[in-house]
């Protein structure tokens, strides 16, 4: 295991524990793999510059937006 993966695993153990969620040894490889994918996906979003006025759209009505 590389340093980055070891660091990530340590992060996962601490963060999951802080959240009060279980993390058994058999969960760790799967959680790590998913964290790596999530980080890659998030980078695509975070790297994109949005105007400060860009409003979030957590719940929206696409028909309203289309008018």
């Amino acid at each position, binding site marked *: 295991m590389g340093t980055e993966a070891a660091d990530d695993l340590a*992060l*996962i153990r601490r*963060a*999951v524990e802080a*959240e*009060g*969620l*279980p*993390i*058994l040894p*058999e*969960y760790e490889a*799967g*959680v*790590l*793999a*998913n*964290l790596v*994918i*999530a980080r*890659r*996906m*998030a980078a*695509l*979003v*975070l790297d*994109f510059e*949005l105007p400060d006025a*860009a*409003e*979030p*759209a*957590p*719940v*929206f*009505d*696409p*028909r309203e*937006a*289309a008018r």
Partner: protein
Amino acid sequence: MTDWTSRSAGAIAAAVKAGEITARSVVEAHLAAVAARNGTLNAFTDILAERALARADAIDRMRAGGAPLPPLAGVPFAAKNLYDIAGLATHAGSRINRDLPPAEADSPLIQRLEAAGAILIGATNMTEYAYGFTSDNAHDGPARNPHDTARTTGGSSSGTAAAVAGGLATFGLGSDTNGSIRVPAAFCGLFGLKPTYGALSRAGSFPFVSSLDHLGPLARTAADCALAFDAMAGPDTADPMCARSKPAPVVPELAKGLAGIRIARAAGHYAQNGMPDVLAAVSVAADRLGATDEVVFPEAHRARAAAFVITMVEGAALHRGRLKARAADFDPEVRDRLIAGAILPGAWVMQAQRFRRWFLDQALGLFATHDVILAPAVPCVAPKIGERTFVLDGVELPVRAHLGVYTQPISFIGLPVMTVPLATAGLPIGVQLIAAPGREDLALRVAAAMESEGIARSGTAWIKPASDGIVKTRKN
């Protein structure tokens, strides 16, 4: 002798109305098909024979009494087991939900379909908690693709797709958060409608990601999707996001054909990221439709990424209590994604939500010049069950995560989409017909025209059972 298990909903309802066949006989034919094939396809987790036959008899009594019959009279359908069905616990593909009390009532969409004469014959297998694009399920086993039972149906509406493509139900209900109607429809050679966000009530269904969840039908004809949509559409105060007015019926629109509809093909992200044979088939379909214009959903890859992040975090929040109490009872594939989602930074999600507004504005601009945008639905044909990676452009990619590469950007902003099965040789390939919000009619018109012109083709498929087709099914 007519094989009623391969007929369309429209044809069955017409035959029942004309007295050519009884609703009971139609239901019995389907129950016989279920008895013969479900052991291999693993489409149904619950078979509602008694209930279905009782409702069929009620339809037959209506006809005998001279009462006018509703538009879906005697048509058997299936519902993904995240829909509430009176008397059954709503599994949502999980082990944990089996401990829930039985639902007290059918979900509103099932009620509306049965009010229109359709007959629910069972609840179908699905990916646990609707989280995944394959049919893998650690508790119920995988649903199998009727075109090749060694292959996945796609997910998460896996059992519904297997049931409809396998001739066990005339149409079925699925849910689509990131592509869970469109991916299985494409892999199983079916039409699938993911309506505009909010067009159909989600009340009485087990949720996943509220701002991305849609419900809709899968069928073997475009007209059957339209019939089901018309029967189900309309306001419902029990779903706070449901539209407040009933849309105009789409069935009467189908006969209008392609006249006046401006069709473009999606370029950029949608001309990459897929297997060459899939992209070539989509291109042929676009040519036959005369769709020479190209449009680009700007930053579609980021839209897909934003949907991915939102799904992980919202899903983790929804299942937090179950993760704390019963992590070991989850499907491991789902559990590990949810645990990872529980520890992602909040700023990631907020930025994804801000990006969503930007992307919606950009996408809506495309409909100023075109009415329907044609794009691939899936990057490949159905992978083999258990296949975890595939190679694209020399890069090894995870199957489970990559199958939504084309569907996720569209559900992210709630646009209506029809998935259409192309008339190609070999395993099914599907395309998406994407329209502006509220314009299901346009996507359905193009789908119906593709069908009548031979560009699209569906039907029942039944291939020899795989040698390892040992499955588990529960019956009520």
